[in-house]
């Protein structure tokens, strides 16, 4: 095969845009090189090893190396087979049957069967486990093993997205025997079916994994070893990549992106995503139970400036709807622009002709919550809003403000589907009903859409739901973040996933020029 210079090829394909990349890449790919150690850096400690309890992206990264789910999330947010080889559903979308891969074993050598899948999901759905997956895997009423390699999910409501939601970051399969003996064991050991096996685990420093030779896919993973290094300081993290100490940074903050991408031998990675920072209104409490107050504040926001302030220009404008063009069912509604006169009038109509004083709470993690709050404070000032920004430790925030407060800043990863983000945050029965908007019309649209298979009909329903949010503003969503990462040129096959919590490092290999590491 004629050799194409890899770098110019990548540059060319990147220029062709997202769709073209996946099409062209397959043709150009020579077989990935086997072997080598990849050093990937993360920006937070990997505190939780237990895959059912992981909560932050670095933990998801490690869990994904060690464990498998039934399905996994492809780059286009569709479900692809993982432990489940294939699946079928009943016409009413209430019963789903998953056929498992045969001959899969856990790292300790024991076979992974339907019983393990059933036990894992029962643990996830048990409130005592406190797994984040519980509210996110879909309306599962019952799960049963039909035989050793067939699992049947019975749902409490028709749901078209189940294969996608089953790929949730926490929905990993662990041995039934371990679950029986107590979950604590998984805090220190990893017994999964993932592409890698755990070698060592130091939460604050580094996690080492080695190739699982018994992985169900004979070709993958290509790497012999992955070392996950924790760099709580982004400057240090960037310098390590530039110096060649690490090969890949999983998340680069917007403020460091330009510096790191400019370095020689380094390539910045960027993908549009639905990750956003928002300002939540408690729609059940004064003053924000009045839709005019919410609309007034939304009209003060200069969204272009906000993209600059919170993403350094590496993001997209938000329209108070949690979807953007990175989502399949995004509806492009009229862009909101600041209109201070109208904002003042709405505020006066709502009974605050002399302005309104409110306290906006921002947790200190990540710091851009405060960044957003301070910017909003200034933008809203001319319209008569006096916003006092109050920051607090994340723990206190979760305890005292989150889901209860009347005015606070939220921060979310992109979800795989429109339904997932709506059901997570905005429906009346949302897992995290932050705004208590509780709009029956919205609920109805979302419920109908999740039971609809017809694409056009579904698109229409979701468009109506978005229009409703656009008008009623349960939360202000001023900006979406592009996801940013960086890698050395010698890293091959790494694709930045817009979900933010998915990494697929089993597809990565080290090309020519990579340093030899023991």
């Amino acid at each position, binding site marked *: 095969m004629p050799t194409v210079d890899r770098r110019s090829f990548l540059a060319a394909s990147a220029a062709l845009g997202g769709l073209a990349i996946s099409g062209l890449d397959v043709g150009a790919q020579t077989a990935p090189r086997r072997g080598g150690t990849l050093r990937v850096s993360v920006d937070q*400690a990997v505190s939780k*090893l237990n895959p059912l309890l992981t909560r932050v992206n670095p933990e998801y990264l490690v869990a994904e190396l060690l464990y498998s789910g039934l399905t996994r999330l492809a780059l286009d947010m569709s479900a692809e087979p993982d432990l489940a080889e294939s699946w079928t559903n009943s016409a009413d979308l209430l019963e789903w049957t998953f056929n498992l891969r045969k001959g899969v074993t856990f790292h300790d050598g024991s076979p992974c069967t339907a019983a393990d899948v059933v036990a894992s999901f029962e643990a996830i759905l048990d409130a005592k486990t*406190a797994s984040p997956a519980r509210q996110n895997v879909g309306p599962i009423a019952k799960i049963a093993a039909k035989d050793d390699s067939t699992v049947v999910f019975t749902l409490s409501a028709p749901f078209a997205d189940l294969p996608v939601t089953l790929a949730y970051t926490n929905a990993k399969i662990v041995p039934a025997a371990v679950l029986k003996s107590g979950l604590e064991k998984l805090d220190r050991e990893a017994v999964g079916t993932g592409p890698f096996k755990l070698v060592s685990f130091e939460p604050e420093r580094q996690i080492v994994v080695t190739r699982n030779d018994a992985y169900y896919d004979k070709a993958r993973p290509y790497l012999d070893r992955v070392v996950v290094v924790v760099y709580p300081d982004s400057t240090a993290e960037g310098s390590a990549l530039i110096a060649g100490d690490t090969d890949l940074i999983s998340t680069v903050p917007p403020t460091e992106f330009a510096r790191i991408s400019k370095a020689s031998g380094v390539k910045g990675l960027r993908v549009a995503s639905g990750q956003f920072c928002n300002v939540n209104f408690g729609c059940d409490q004064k003053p924000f139970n009045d839709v005019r107050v919410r609309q007034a504040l939304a009209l003060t926001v200069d969204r272009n400036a906000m993209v600059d302030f919170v993403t350094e220009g590496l993001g997209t404008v938000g329209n108070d709807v949690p979807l953007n063009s990175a989502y399949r069912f995004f509806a492009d509604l009229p862009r909101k622009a600041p209109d201070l006169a109208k904002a003042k009038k709405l505020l006066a109509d709502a009974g605050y002709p002399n302005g309104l004083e409110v306290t906006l709470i921002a947790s200190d993690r990540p710091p851009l919550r405060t960044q957003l709050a301070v910017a909003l404070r200034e933008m809203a000032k001319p319209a008569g809003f006096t916003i006092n920004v109050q920051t607090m430790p994340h723990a206190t925030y979760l*305890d005292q403000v989150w889901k209860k407060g009347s005015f606070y800043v939220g921060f979310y990863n992109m979800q795989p589907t429109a339904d997932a983000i709506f059901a997570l945050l905005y429906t009346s029965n949302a897992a995290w009903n932050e705004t208590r908007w509780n709009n029956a019309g919205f609920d109805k649209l979302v419920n109908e859409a999740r039971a609809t298979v017809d694409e056009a009909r579904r698109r229409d329903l979701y468009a109506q739901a978005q229009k409703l949010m656009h008008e009623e503003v349960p939360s202000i969503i001023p900006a979406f973040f592009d996801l940013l990462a960086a890698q050395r040129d010698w890293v091959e096959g790494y694709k930045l996933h817009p979900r933010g919590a998915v990494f697929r490092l089993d597809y990565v290999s080290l090309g020519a020029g990579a340093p030899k590491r023991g």
Partner: protein
Amino acid sequence: MSPAYVLKRIALICYTLFVVSLIVFAITQILPADAAVMLLGENATQEALAAVRERLGLDAPLWQQYLHWLGGVVQGDFGTSMRTGQPVGPALFEALGRSLLLALFSILLMLALALPLGIVAAIRRGRIADLVVGVISYIGVSLPEFVTATLLVLVLADWLQWLPATGYVPLTENFGRGLLHLVLPVLTVSLILIAHVSRMVRSELVDVLHTDYIRAARLKGLSNRTVLFKHGLRNALLPTITIVALDIGYLLGGVIVVEEIFALPGIGRQLIVAIQSRDLPSVQAGALIMATTYAIANFLADIAYAWLDRRIQYD
């Protein structure tokens, strides 16, 4: 330095540690956020919270929790981290090792620089050298660690690109690189020490050089050098030792900030992380270990003082 004195000092250390353990336990127990909420975060349901509280023994009366904790500590068991589920002790002691390495290098650099600077300033009192040393030590004493560190990073790492800005590489992994990463933290920590100690050496030496005892030695016709090194310096060093011992408490506090800035995974950084995430067992153990380190350092300084003092008297 009688055995009785040493015993009394050891008894005092025990009392100190007891008081510290009480304070630390009291402060951490009334932290505002519920530890169970912290542990479960976004996914805390009431059932899950109750289960965790029971598992952690958060339901027991405070004094029982204290005794339980203290009993564990005495046996070397510092409990289990709420954040990671790992035992607290080993991680903290490993971190303490890295901090002590930082402290050791800083003290060595301080000794290498502070003594000569102080001596030069004392001998050349009122002249340019004295002034320069004085200005340096003023700046050193007055800059908070985070300012020193910031300025050093700006100049040496960002503009000149001589040194890595932040981060930590274990010496066992790559000795050369590990040392390079230690340069800026060591400079930051030692600047304040150097400033402090060189001032102290200078002023003590100036005092000593004016005593009758030294004048007499000079009159006897001893050379300046002999007077300075045999008589002056030794007497001036005594109070300096006390200062260095006191500085160790300061050093430990400074280490917290320096480790945070340079992302050096020592005990100070562990403590900050533990405090921010409400990881009570780690906070308690970390604070206790720090206080113990300080108490022991003080104890050693006192012993050294007593020992040197006696030698001087017998001279």
